[in-house]
């Protein structure tokens, strides 16, 4: 399967990465090379093989539903780019 320039723009949009036409052209060439490398695995017969997502087959642990963290709002907000009255500021989204 081959990746075209429209795919590059679409993926950049999905990934929320601003990209100029020139950057997209350069990315297109490099991504095509990388997918050339990845293509080696397409021919392998994997019928009946269970996908492996983690090295150890362990199940998700559960814990008691109790509070374990303290409120550190001020500390955490001190590293945000824009904060006001304890809230994170972003451009207006609702008219």
């Amino acid at each position, binding site marked *: 399967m081959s990746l075209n320039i429209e795919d590059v723009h679409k993926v950049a949009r999905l990934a929320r990465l601003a990209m100029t036409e020139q950057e997209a052209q350069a990315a297109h060439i490099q991504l095509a090379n990388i997918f050339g490398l990845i293509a080696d695995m397409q021919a392998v017969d994997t019928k009946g093989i269970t996908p492996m997502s983690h090295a150890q087959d*362990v199940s998700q642990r559960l814990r008691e539903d109790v509070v374990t963290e303290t409120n550190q709002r001020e500390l955490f907000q001190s590293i945000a780019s824009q904060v006001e009255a304890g809230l994170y500021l972003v451009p207006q989204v609702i008219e």
Partner: protein
Amino acid sequence: MLDSSLQQLGSALRARKISSVELTQLYLDRIAAFNPALNAYITTNAELSLAQARAADVLLAGGKAQALTGIPVAQKDIFCAKGWRTTCGSKMLENFIAPYDAHVIEQFNKAGAVNLGKTNMDEFAMGSSNETSYFGAVKNPWDQKAVPGGSSGGAACAVAARLCAAATGTDTGGSIRQPAALCGISGIKPTYGTVSRYGMIAFASSLDQAGPMARSAEDLALLLNVMTGFDSRDSTSLQRDKEDYARDLNKPLAGLRIGLPKEFFAEGLAQDVANCVHTAIAQYKQLGATVVDISLPNSKLAVPVYYVLAPAEASSNLSRFDGVRYGYRAPEYSDLTEMYEKSRAQGFGEEVKRRIMIGTYVLSHGYYDAYYLQAQKIRRLIAQDFADAFKQCDVIMGPTSPSTAFNLGEKGDDPVQMYLSDIYTIAVNLAGLPGMSIPAGFGSNGRPVGLQIIGNYFAEAQMLNVAHQYQLAIDWHTKQPNVI
């Protein structure tokens, strides 16, 4: 003092022959002198380091010292350390002061070790040369025209150049072992799940694993004793009894079966690296080991599989960087979407964006089965190859990297060539096995060569024994770059 083992340093500190403040200052002075050329550290903070050293001296004076109390350790800049700038090698986190400690940092703090500074790395650990760092490339102390390897390139450089007593690294596809090999030091990536990933900035969560980097296997054992341990805040942390990784160091190697995978000695391996590895194997035979020829038939698929799985996980992990709660925000934007798109485009470097693009694509509608699921299936085949191999041998050996350190800029324009430099290390991460690299001589250009040792799950103590016995017999690990 600079050539002392961690055990010797610990003894000297406990005997009050030197104080932790003096030792820390010694390294800070060396960093001030040599870091401008080598660029191994992104951040040092003498005030914070010396405060820890003073606290360590109190413990030492009170007879409450542990093995690493008072010893200055360099921390890879991927670990959040409270009050320390933690950049992960990225413009995105250029001004990020971590509000909490990673589990690894907590463990070192509890042990009374001193955080000497944050080491340089490829941006978000994505790279094999340390050239993708926003804070500039690190130089290889053996030859400053060469890369130190990556992504833990700053850590490897700092250990080799005696700019720390020891260091931490992380390894997603070879990021501890490859720079250890290229800088002539020792490093171990333990079994996936033995060191907590809490507070370690995530790249590919199912592969990321932290480990120590130092000058000898003996030092690695002491560091691993501190770094490992169950942590409920990492959902993949394994609940196991605490073990002493130094317990088997002095066992003789008679009867050890070393597996040599034919795929690790095929086309693509530089002759000078092959020669060093074969010499090391011959030396192991003299120490009583026997050699078994094995095959890892699917290992050639490790690089393609990795470049589906790791970017897929990265694209998800790095979606948190949106310019809202922390990290870089673009100065100008007209709406929320543009704020995200510009902040991410300006805050991430080229390699990171490339991998986010790959990951987003392979996870997108219509391609998931063909790429992600297929890669996960082959991942199991790769793990099964190792399981079969370990029926015939105790450890697997081979080269860590196909060549010695390449020159800065040499592979800059070709991501595929860069990706292939991890051809022998990636399969180990996919299987979740422990892997290490120890110095095994020098290539024809005078740059270090690493011997890779791969063990079965939880065989770290055995691997450290195998490495230590070699280091008792052969002194490659004591060589140091003469420029420093």
